[in-house]
């Protein structure tokens, strides 16, 4: 059963909004900061408008990686440039971006969902036990059982002993058919931005189902956020 049945929008926090500078003043900051109407500056997406929510597990996930020299990270979400920069700067790591949402979307569009588990078996070229951290985000929520099982098996194979996997799982059903792009603000805050999907989340997994799914891993930390998202940090036993 969902632990929090209310279907509440994720908490909208303003992450230290910078004071607005009146337009009539042209100060030093105006000279240093690119202006939106500057033709030389590429149009910036409305990142500042994206809702922010607090994350408890990301910092712990990062902690597991900082002890490693040049850790290897696997990101299953769509590529987010600022996330790549964040991990690169924080950890000096190597990041593999493997957008599973794109694979899922393609299979749904082509009506070949039954072929997805087979694809996932061969999807990851990395050697077993070579990945230090996996950002699974909420991709499991969108999968049917067979695909989720195959993906979990592959991710477990890829993780090195003591490696960490960060997964998000919904605890309440949402009717909208959209994927979510998670954008790291800092160690304790994430922004999210939704984008169109071919199908919505399939089911609300119970905690015990998630634990069974990742039976080769152990749950290190688990948090239920105000926005009904469960953050679960798994570790692979040594």
């Amino acid at each position, binding site marked *: 059963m969902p632990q929090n049945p209310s279907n509440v929008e994720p908490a909208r926090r303003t992450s230290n909004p910078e004071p607005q500078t009146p337009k009539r003043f042209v100060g030093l900051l105006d000279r240093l900061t690119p202006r939106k109407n500057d033709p030389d500056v590429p149009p910036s997406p409305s990142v500042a408008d994206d809702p922010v929510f607090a994350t408890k597990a990301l910092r712990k996930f990062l902690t597991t990686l900082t002890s490693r020299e040049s850790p290897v990270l696997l990101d299953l979400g769509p590529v987010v440039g600022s996330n790549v920069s964040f991990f690169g700067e924080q950890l000096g790591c190597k990041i593999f971006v493997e957008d599973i949402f794109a694979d899922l979307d393609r299979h749904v569009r082509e009506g070949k969902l039954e072929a997805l588990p087979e*694809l996932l078996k061969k999807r990851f070229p990395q050697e077993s036990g070579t990945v230090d951290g996996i950002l699974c985000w909420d991709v499991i929520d969108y999968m049917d059982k067979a695909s989720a099982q195959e993906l979990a098996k592959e991710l477990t194979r890829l993780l090195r002993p003591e490696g960490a996997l960060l997964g998000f799982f919904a605890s309440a059903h949402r009717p909208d058919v959209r994927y979510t792009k998670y954008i790291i603000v800092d160690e304790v805050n994430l922004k999210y931005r939704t984008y169109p999907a071919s199908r919505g989340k399939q089911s609300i997994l119970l905690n015990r189902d998630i634990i069974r799914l990742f039976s080769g891993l152990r749950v290190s930390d688990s948090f239920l956020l105000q926005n009904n998202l469960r953050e679960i940090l798994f570790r692979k036993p040594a």
Partner: protein
Amino acid sequence: MEKDIVNIGKSVVIKGELNGSEDLTIEGHVEGTIQLRDHVLTIGPNGRIKAQVFAKAVIVLGEVTGNVTASDKVDIRDNGSVDGDIVSPRVAIAEGAHFRGSVDMQRKGQPQAAKPPQPQGGQPQQTQQTQPQPAQRVGA
């Protein structure tokens, strides 16, 4: 003094090894290897590259299939596309850019990205290569 920037136009197709010691913008097609050790390589919106790329900085507005190594920065702009592995201390990927592969960002003090052997200076030039290295695809 004006900085030299060489432009490879839309209709130009190069197969082989491209070396140079000045900034270069490619709007055409290049297959093989591109080496601009200390200079900026820009793949224009019309540029289509199937090559291993080595440069100081690489700006991608077009399409690159192959591994990209930059000693300073790789910048994939909106609508730019890279299918391959990136090795660079700084990487920027714009919203709307396509990227598939891995990103290896070394920290300062870590060994720099491997530079290709036998660097050559002079004007960008096309040299015949008997067996150009095929671009590596990443992922399944």
